[in-house]
């Protein structure tokens, strides 16, 4: 099973939108996919009309609960959800109590090995023990960047942080999100920043409407330019994952 995480220190930059759309695309490709909504706000769970509730909370999940007991199938066939829970806000504390705090997320995922081909982690916006545990479990970090100088700086911070942690370090694939091509700054940044995914997710109302329709744009409007951008992003992410041992 390969693991992909959508991660950013900043909030509201398109992590959840990327996670749910890539999840739907992976399932359509025939991969048995699980999306773990690690954000206590539960946006991905809401989007799939699934209650953000895990019996026993994050604590039991990290300790000994079989994740399959609390998972739910989404409206996208082949994509299951490990829902969010408000108790995830204390997941750092729970991990800190463990002998190997960084192994916590990986240990939960290890129980899904064999049942799934791909795990997607929708991470909360922070840099914490949870994120470090995600870094240690993930093969690939997808990092959304809103085209601004501040975002670029945040990406640099992340890269520096990852360089400082021990092996294994996940691959990092930043991608531009919420791009408004009418803005010169957006166009210039998208064109000039190296090492970023070719696909840029546009700032489109179809993406915003996902919250209302409660369906990924790649299934509700597969020909929309935003859906096509997610498909291109998934193709690039998949190539990286297929290359990852």
């Amino acid at each position: 099973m390969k693991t992909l995480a959508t991660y950013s220190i900043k909030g509201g930059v398109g992590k959840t939108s990327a996670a749910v759309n890539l999840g739907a695309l992976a399932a359509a490709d025939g991969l048995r996919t699980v999306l773990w909504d690690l954000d206590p706000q539960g946006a991905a769970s809401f989007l799939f009309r699934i209650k953000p509730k895990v019996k026993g909370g994050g604590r039991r999940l990290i300790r000994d609960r079989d994740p399959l007991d609390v998972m739910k199938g989404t409206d996208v066939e082949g994509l299951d959800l490990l829902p969010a829970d408000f108790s995830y806000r204390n997941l750092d504390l729970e991990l800190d109590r463990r002998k190997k705090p960084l192994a916590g997320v990986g240990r939960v995922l290890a129980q899904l090995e064999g049942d799934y081909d791909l795990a997607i982690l929708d991470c909360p916006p922070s840099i914490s023990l949870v994120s470090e545990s995600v870094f240690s479990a993930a093969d690939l970090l997808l990092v959304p960047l809103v085209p601004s100088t501040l975002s670029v700086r945040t990406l640099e911070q992340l890269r520096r942080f990852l360089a400082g942690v021990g092996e294994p370090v996940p691959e990092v694939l930043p991608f531009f999100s919420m791009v408004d091509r009418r803005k010169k700054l957006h166009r210039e940044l998208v064109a000039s920043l190296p090492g970023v995914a070719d696909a840029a997710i546009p700032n489109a109302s179809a993406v915003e409407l996902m919250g209302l329709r409660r369906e990924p744009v790649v299934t509700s409007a597969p020909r929309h330019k935003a859906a096509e951008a997610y498909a291109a992003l998934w193709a690039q992410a998949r190539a990286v994952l297929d290359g990852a041992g």
Partner: protein
Amino acid sequence: MAPDPVDLILPSSLDRAAAVALLHERLELVDGRPRTSDRTLLDSFDGRLRAAGLRAERPAGRGAGLELHEAGAPVRRAAVRRAKRLLITELPEGAVRERLAPVLEERALLPAVRVRSGVQPLAVVDGDRKTVVRLEIEHPQLIAAGGKAIALKPRLEVRPVLGYDRAYERTLATLRDELGFEPAKRPLYDEAVRKAGGRPGGIATKVKAELARGTATDAAAALVLGRLHEVAEANLPGTLEDLDPEFLHDLRVSIRRARSVLRELKDVHDPEARTHVRDELKWAQALTGPVRDLDVQLLEWPELAAHVGDVRAAELEPLRSLLAARRERERAKLARGLRGKRFRATLRAWQALAAETSGPGKDAGKPIEATAGERIAKVLARMLKDGRKIDGESPPEALHDLRKRGKELRYLLELFGAVFDERAVDPLVAGLKHLQKVLGRFQDRAVQVETLRDMRHDLAAQPEGPLALIALGPVLDALLADQEAAREEFAEAFEEFELAAGDKRVRKAFGP
């Protein structure tokens, strides 16, 4: 995990619109987009996908692509070219190939039947409009040869959604108890294949003759020879069409086993007829040998090339081309032989011998457990005697001969084991299997080295052939090293076999 999906049969009188309307009366539903699904269903000749709970489909007509369906997993898709057969190596890397590789092994995916359906997906939803159960109304038709459409039973597939087991049970209860829909007795694939006159489980290539203790030897021989003849006939068309290497392999195995039956049960049939069939089967075995040997070389090519690095593996390519070309030539000869009068006559003579349920020989009337038991005891004793003599200095022939005896014993146990205590047969077969594997490796490596060495002049004459010859050196070294390793493993494998043979149940059943 979620429970398994269920197929229900809809009354034939319910067309799509009526079925949808009826379901809406009882369930909270969201309609999906109706579609027509015209596809060819595929499986291997011996029904491996069906046995593994898989269903492979390819769009009918000019459409390309392959879909793999499995309960509890999303549909896996692969881009494949249109072809009369698909081998695992012909599938692109990806989810389909990964799932099918251990199931299909060397077998080809072959078209089994074409089905065209009108499909209406529906979602049972909860108060939040969340899908909790998936339904699919299907009105299928078998498209027979010549394009004639034959209606199959309309179905309603009910698929659970993970975490919504109660909704699934409620839905099933509504459909079964309130609407009276009966569960389908067999899957759509089975219904379509049967309707088309085929066998849904494929053609079994393992001989499982149902023998009972007390069966007269002539009747038992007839049963086993008859079944082996059926397997040979069933594998002949696939061998001629060269669909996959297993057809030829299974044809050869049935011939070899028939020879073994005739060798072991020598006082059953008319001696002249027996000698004739034995000679002809020996000829047929020799006829089919060269292609099989080359098949093995080509099937083992990835392992062979793995002995050297990627660059040198590429340099070996002229050798692979040479093997493939040689196989093509041998295959043409084989096809001529198999289509020829002599082979047809061999099959007829074999069949005629199998039809003889009362033989003139002195053992004909004895119970099979007596005749086969005596043979098993003799071969086993000889194997043990010969095997104990083998040491580090023994010539390769000693190991080759022991392997032949092992094959003899294995066939006896496989073909007639049913009439003996399985607690004696099973451990003996297990011990024998391992020993045969080690001996097989010892001999196969020797044959491989010899074949590859024999090709040196032809290879040198190829463009880039000398480079391939250089790359071949380490390959031969690796093969010889593996042969040596097999020899070293022999002592332990033989000890294991001896231990199994020494078991008191084995001694009781086959002891001196």
